[in-house]
């Protein structure tokens, strides 16, 4: 037979155990949520980095001639990339030179293509990312085969589109990094 005092003691420890488990679950949940937000914070930082870099590079492309100003005639010695005659008015020759150097055949790229692609990435100071560049018209058709880089298949990519004139023709410059 259980003594009344013993019964009371059992109830107290059961209550405490229950409380302890609820508390434990609460702590574990808090940690899980914390970790989720930490990962989101990191992803957010990474995405912001990409936006910033993509904006800077697209700005250079559409606002500047590059350095040296006629770099398209001697691409090996290019220091800064730029396609513009003046703001948003781009030279097709400069774009063609850039595309020629950074074009990567989808599926089976040659070593030369990959080496050139990496050189162009280094020139833009985006070695840790991949990029995809193209000039499209308003129907999203690529203009004069002006596209280069590696097409993206990632949801974490960032794409900047700028309205430009390419040798007088209205087009869209699209630059993505991922």
């Amino acid at each position, binding site marked *: 037979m259980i003594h009344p005092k013993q019964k009371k003691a059992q109830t107290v420890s059961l209550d405490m155990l229950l409380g302890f488990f609820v508390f434990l679950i609460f702590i574990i949940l808090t940690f899980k949520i914390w970790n989720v937000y930490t990962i989101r914070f990191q992803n957010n930082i990474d995405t912001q980095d990409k936006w910033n870099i993509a904006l800077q590079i697209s*700005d250079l492309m559409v*606002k500047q001639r590059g350095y040296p100003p006629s770099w398209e005639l001697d691409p090996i010695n290019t220091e800064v990339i730029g396609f513009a005659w003046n703001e948003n008015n781009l030279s097709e020759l400069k774009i063609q030179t850039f595309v020629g150097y950074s074009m990567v055949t989808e599926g089976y790229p040659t070593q030369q293509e990959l080496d050139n692609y990496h050189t162009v990435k280094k020139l833009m100071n985006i070695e840790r990312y991949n990029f995809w560049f193209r000039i499209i018209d308003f129907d999203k058709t690529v203009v004069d085969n002006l596209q280069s880089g590696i097409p993206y298949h990632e949801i974490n990519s960032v794409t900047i589109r700028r309205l430009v004139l390419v040798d007088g023709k209205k087009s869209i410059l699209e630059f993505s990094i991922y």
Partner: protein
Amino acid sequence: MKKGQISVEILFSLGVVMLLFIIVMTMITDRNEQIRKGERYTELRETCFRVANLLTSIWSSETTNMSMRLYYNVTIEGPERSLFVTGKEQVFCSYPVSRVSNQTNTVFNLTPGYITFYYNNSYVVVRNT
């Protein structure tokens, strides 16, 4: 005897509660430190982006003359196109323009205070004012 048994139980419960309290407090302190570190990092990163964006836009526009206030030490490595902002921690960011100098060097430091950016002879010049 019976009274003694009750106080052992209470003591045990108190011990467990104290232990839990200490564990939770440690966790909260740790998380607080992480948040403070995150805030500091975000602030340094913002400065890094602001300087990098100004460098790029001065280069793109060629003529603009701009200034901003720095609250941290900044190191610019022109040829590497790298920027380091140093506070309690150090934050790094990059920019695509290789022609940056302080008029005399392409690797240089900027100290807290006002800094000026301008375009000169195919270079973006950045210096303390």
